[in-house]
């Protein structure tokens, strides 16, 4: 997951590296996703990885739907 200045730079990078365009998130959506994913410190004994259903719920809450976001 890489940072880019804007959409034009994403498109140029995808062409240069022969990669299909994936999903582009604005910073606040990316931050909310990071907060949901990493907000529980992993030095807590009760931390565990999210289940597939929990992951799907996080994505859906942020409007990240469709084939790209399905596991």
């Amino acid at each position, binding site marked *: 997951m890489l*940072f880019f200045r804007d959409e034009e730079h*994403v498109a140029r990078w995808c062409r240069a590296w022969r990669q299909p365009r994936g999903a*582009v998130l604005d910073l606040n959506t990316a931050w909310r996703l990071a907060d949901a*994913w990493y907000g529980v410190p*992993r030095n807590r004994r009760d931390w565990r990885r999210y289940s597939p259903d929990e992951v799907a719920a996080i994505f859906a809450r942020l409007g990240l739907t469709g084939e790209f976001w399905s596991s």
Partner: protein
Amino acid sequence: MPITAEDVAVRCCVYDIVLESGRVPARQDCAHRLSRTDAEIAASLERLHAAHQIVLAPNGEILMAMPFSAVPTPFVVSSGTFRTYANCGWDALGVAAMLHCDATVSTSCSDCGDALEVSVADSRASGDALLHFALPVRHWWDSVVFT
């Protein structure tokens, strides 16, 4: 390979050290702190790796304790005197989330290389940047380093 209580203790130790210092620990750091042998720590790390809780390098040392990177990357996260490397752009924001602190990500545009700065303050992110996810979710663990 089910995760054991000893493995959980190793995972907590890894994150205790990285959250204290910004540095992903070496195996011997965990062995010293937990008074366990290197072989015991190595076995726990293998099980944590298999469970996708960390990522090991070929030499058996930790490469990634997500969101933290054991090696320098173009994603430098600072918060006060705390400074660390994240694995990717998402993980850089994840460091701020795990710290529960305001933070600054010093990075660059992956296309043109120009410097970019992303700030997290008061639970909001700001900066002149976008985050691109190249791979669909179902392929994230096919090659986690590329992801």
